[in-house]
C-alpha cells in the first residue's frame, strides 16, 4: 500500500515533467508541419516553445494538487463518520463518547500500535471494513487525481497551436499564484486571531472578561489535584500589564536616549571610519539572540545591580524589574538607532544647509530643524520598539519574576504577560484548566496591543510625514 502511495506521489510529480516535454515537442512539430504545408506564408509562433511546455505542465499539476489538498483536508472526516456508523451497526452502541473510543482503538489497531488482544471483537470485525475503506479511499484519490491530471493534459494538449497565446496563460497563472502567496500574510493573521480567540473564549466562559481586564489580583492558583484547595485563583491581569509596562518603560528610558543619540551622532557628526566600525557593531547587538540576553541579565546584570544597590543602600529584589528592563533596553538600542538613522538620513540636505546659512550651530540645526522634521519617523520607531519590548519573552522569562506584584517600585520584582504565558503553558497544572486557557487570553491581549501600536505608528508616519520632493 505504501509503495503504491509512493508511486502515485512520484507519478504526480513526474507527469508535469512529461507534459512539459510533450508540449515542447508538439509545438516544434506543429511549426515544422505548418512551415511545410503553408510554404507561401509561414505561420508565426505566438509564444516561445518553453511557454507551451510550461503551460502544459501547469495544467497537469495544479488541478491534481488542489484535489490532493482537498482530500487531505476532508477525507478523514468522511472516513471517520462512515466508520462510526459501521461500528454502531456492529455493536449496537449509540453513545458518541464510546463510539469515539472505538474509532480511536480501531485506528490504533490499523496502524499496528494496538495489539488485537486489547480490543473488543466487534472492533476487530470492523478492522476489515476500515482497511478496505481506507484502501478504497486511497484508490479513489489516486484515480481521481490521475484522471484530473490526464484531463488537464488532454485539454491543454489540444490547445497547443502556433497561434495559441501560451505565454499569456502562463503569466496569468503565475500572477494568481503570486496573489495566493501574498494572501498567506492575511491567512496568518486570521489564523492567529482564530486560534487565540477560540481558546480565549473558552477562558472567558469561566472568567468574565471585565474581571480579566480590570481585576487587580493575579494569582492563577487553581487546584492542581482534585481535593486540593488551590487558593484564590484570581485572574485579574492588571498587575501583569503594569509589570510589562514598567519593564518596557525602563527599557525605553535606556534605549531611547542612547539609540537616538547614537543615530544622530553617527549620521551627523561621525567620521566615515567611525561610522564604518560603529554601525556594524550596533547591528551586531541586534543580531544577538534573546536567550543570550536573558542569560546575561540573570547572571551578570541582576547580581551586579543587587550588589551595588546594597552598597548605596538600595533594597533591590534579585529579580528586580530594573535588571530585566535594562537588558531589554540594551536589546532595543539597535532597533531604535537603525530606524532613526534611516529617518534622519531621509531629511534632505538643503534643510541642513539652510540652517547653517542662518548661522545655527550643528547642534541647533539638529535639535531645531532635523529632529522636528524627522519626528514622525522617530515616534513611529519608538512605538515599534515599545511593541517589541512588550512582546519580548526570553529575557523576562530568565530574569524577571513570576510573582504578580502591583507595584510602582522598579527595584521590586514584577512579572509580565509573556512570562505568564510561558509559565502557564509549561507548568505542572492540569492542562484544560482555566489556567492554561488564560495563556491564550493573554496572547490575544498581546496581539491586539502590538497591533494597535503598529497601526498607530503607521498612522503617524502617514499623517505627519513631511513630503520634500
Amino acid at each position, binding site marked *: 500500500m505504501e509503495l503504491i502511495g509512493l508511486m502515485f506521489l512520484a507519478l504526480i*510529480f513526474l507527469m508535469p515533467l512529461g507534459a512539459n516535454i510533450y508540449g515542447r515537442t508538439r509545438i516544434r512539430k506543429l511549426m515544422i508541419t505548418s512551415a511545410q504545408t503553408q510554404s507561401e506564408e509561414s505561420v508565426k509562433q505566438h509564444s516561445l516553445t518553453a511557454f507551451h511546455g510550461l503551460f502544459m505542465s501547469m495544467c497537469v499539476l495544479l488541478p491534481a494538487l488542489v484535489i490532493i489538498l482537498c482530500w487531505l483536508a476532508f477525507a478523514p472526516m468522511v472516513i471517520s463518520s462512515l466508520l462510526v456508523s459501521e461500528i454502531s451497526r456492529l455493536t449496537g452502541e449509540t453513545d458518541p463518547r464510546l463510539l469515539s473510543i472505538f474509532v480511536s482503538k480501531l485506528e490504533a489497531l490499523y496502524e499496528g500500535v494496538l495489539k488485537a488482544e486489547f480490543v473488543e471483537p466487534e472492533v476487530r470485525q470492523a478492522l476489515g471494513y476500515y482497511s478496505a475503506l481506507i484502501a478504497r479511499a486511497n484508490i479513489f484519490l489516486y484515480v481521481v487525481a490521475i484522471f484530473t491530471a490526464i484531463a488537464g493534459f488532454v485539454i491543454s494538449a489540444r490547445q497547443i497551436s502556433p497561434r495559441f497565446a501560451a505565454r499569456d496563460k502562463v503569466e496569468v497563472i503565475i500572477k494568481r499564484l503570486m496573489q495566493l502567496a501574498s494572501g498567506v500574510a492575511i491567512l496568518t493573521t486570521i489564523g492567529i486571531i482564530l486560534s487565540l480567540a477560540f481558546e480565549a473564549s473558552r477562558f472567558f466562559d469561566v472568567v468574565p472578561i471585565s474581571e480579566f481586564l480590570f481585576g487587580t489580583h493575579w494569582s492563577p492558583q487553581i487546584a*492542581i489535584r482534585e481535593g486540593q*484547595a488551590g487558593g484564590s485563583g484570581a485572574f485579574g491581569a492588571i498587575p501583569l500589564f503594569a509589570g510589562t509596562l514598567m519593564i518596557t518603560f525602563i527599557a525605553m528610558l535606556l534605549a531611547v536616549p542612547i539609540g537616538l543619540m547614537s543615530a544622530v551622532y553617527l549620521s551627523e557628526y561621525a567620521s566615515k571610519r567611525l561610522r564604518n566600525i560603529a554601525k556594524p557593531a550596533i547591528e551586531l547587538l541586534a543580531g544577538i539572540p534573546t536567550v543570550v540576553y536573558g542569560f546575561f541579565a540573570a547572571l551578570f546584570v541582576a547580581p551586579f545591580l543587587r550588589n551595588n544597590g546594597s552598597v548605596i543602600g538600595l533594597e533591590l529584589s534579585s529579580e528586580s524589574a530594573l535588571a530585566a528592563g535594562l537588558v531589554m533596553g540594551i536589546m532595543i538600542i539597535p532597533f531604535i538607532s537603525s530606524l532613526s538613522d534611516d529617518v534622519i538620513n531621509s531629511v534632505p540636505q538643503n534643510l541642513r544647509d539652510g540652517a547653517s546659512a542662518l548661522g545655527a550651530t550643528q547642534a541647533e540645526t539638529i535639535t531645531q530643524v532635523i529632529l522636528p522634521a524627522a519626528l514622525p519617523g522617530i515616534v513611529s520607531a519608538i512605538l515599534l520598539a515599545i511593541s517589541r519590548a512588550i512582546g519580548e519573552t526570553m529575557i523576562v522569562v530568565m530574569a524577571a519574576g*513570576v510573582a504578580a506584584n502591583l507595584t510602582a517600585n522598579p527595584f521590586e520584582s514584577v512579572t509580565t504577560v509573556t512570562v505568564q504565558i510561558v*509559565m502557564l503553558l509549561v507548568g*505542572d*497544572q492540569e492542562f484544560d484548566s482555566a489556567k492554561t486557557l488564560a495563556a491564550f487570553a493573554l496572547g490575544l491581549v498581546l496581539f491586539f496591543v502590538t497591533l494597535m501600536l503598529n497601526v498607530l505608528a503607521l498612522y503617524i508616519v502617514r499623517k505627519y510625514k513631511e513630503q520634500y520632493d
Partner: protein
Amino acid sequence: MPETKAFQLNFTKLISNIFIASFFLLGTTFVASARDQIVIVGSSTVFPFSTSVAEQFGRNTEFKTPIVESTGSGGGLKLFCAGIGLEHPDVTNASRRIKKSEFDNCQSKGIAMTEVVIGYDGIVVANLKSAATLNLSLKQIFMATAAKVPAPGCENDCALVENPYKMWSDIDPSLPAKKIEILGPPPTSGTRDAFQELAMQGGSKSFPTLNALKKSNKSEWKRIVHTVREDGGWIDSGENDNLMVNKLIANPDAVGVFGYSFLEQNADKLKGSNVDGVAPTFENIADGKYNISRSLYFYVKHAHIGTVPGIKEFVEEFTSENAFGEEGYLIDKGLIPLFEEERDAIRTQGVALKKLEL
C-alpha cells in the same frame, strides 16, 4: 555589469529545484515512518532523572535513546492521554499522582497504564552558607508563608487575619531579625503543590482554630491552609534552576524553597534549614524523618508496548537497582530512594505492567 552575472539565475531551473525539494519534503512527511524511539513527556522535576535513565538506556541497550520533553506534569498527562498512536507519547513523568479526572479522561480514550513510583524528592528550605541556619518548625513555616493566619497571641477561635509577620523574629524571637523573603516555586509547579500540601497543611495542624475550621467548613479550611501569601514575603521564582542560586547569593537574607536534588548539587553554597529539628539530609529524607517529601512517578502506556521497541526494557532499566537503588546513578542526581521492599514491589509491578486502577 559583470557582478550581476552571478545572479542571472535560470528561473526555470530555480523553480524546478524548489519543485523537487518540495517533493522530497512532502514525500517523506506523508509516509509516516514507524517510530523506533520512546517518547517521554512530563514533569520538570522528574526530567533530570528521566533523562539520566534515557541516556544510560540508549548507551547500554540496542534501543535508541528515548526523547524526553519537559512539559510539566499536567501538560505531559494531557499529551499522554490524547490517544493511542505513534504521534502520542509512550511515557509521562509526574511530580504528583495522576488526578482522578485525568485518569478518567485517559480511560475514555481507551488508554491503560502502569504507574511506577521512582522515589522521593525532599522539599527543602535553604539559604546561603554564610547566613545563619534556620531552625524552623512546620508551624513556623506556615506562619511565614500563609496568606491568612490566626491572629497572633490568640489560642482558640481566633479571627483569621492577613499575615502580619514581616520579620522572622516576629514569628519567634529565636529566629533571626531578618525580613521574611522566601523564593519559591510558582503556582504552576508541582513542587509548590507539594509544599502547600506537606509543609503548610502540616504546619496548620498546630492551630486549634484551623483544626476547628476543618471540621466546620472543610473547603474554606483548605483554601486557608493552601494559600500562599502574596504581600512580598513569598516571591514566586523559578524552579530548580541555577538562576535561583544566584538570586540567593545576591540576597543572603532570602531563603529558597526547592527540591533536595538541587540543594545537593549546590552543597558548597547553600544549606538546608532544619524542619522540626530534622536536617534535610539524604538519610533523613530516605528514612521519612524529614517531613516535607513527596513521591515522583511515571506512567507507561500499555497499548504502545510491543509496537514502540524498548518500553518494557526502559521500565526495567528505570527500576533496576543500578538506577533507582540505594547506590544507583539516579541517587547521584539527587533522587531519594524508596525502601528496599518498596523498590522490589514496584519493580515486580512495573515489569509485570500492572494496570493502574483508581
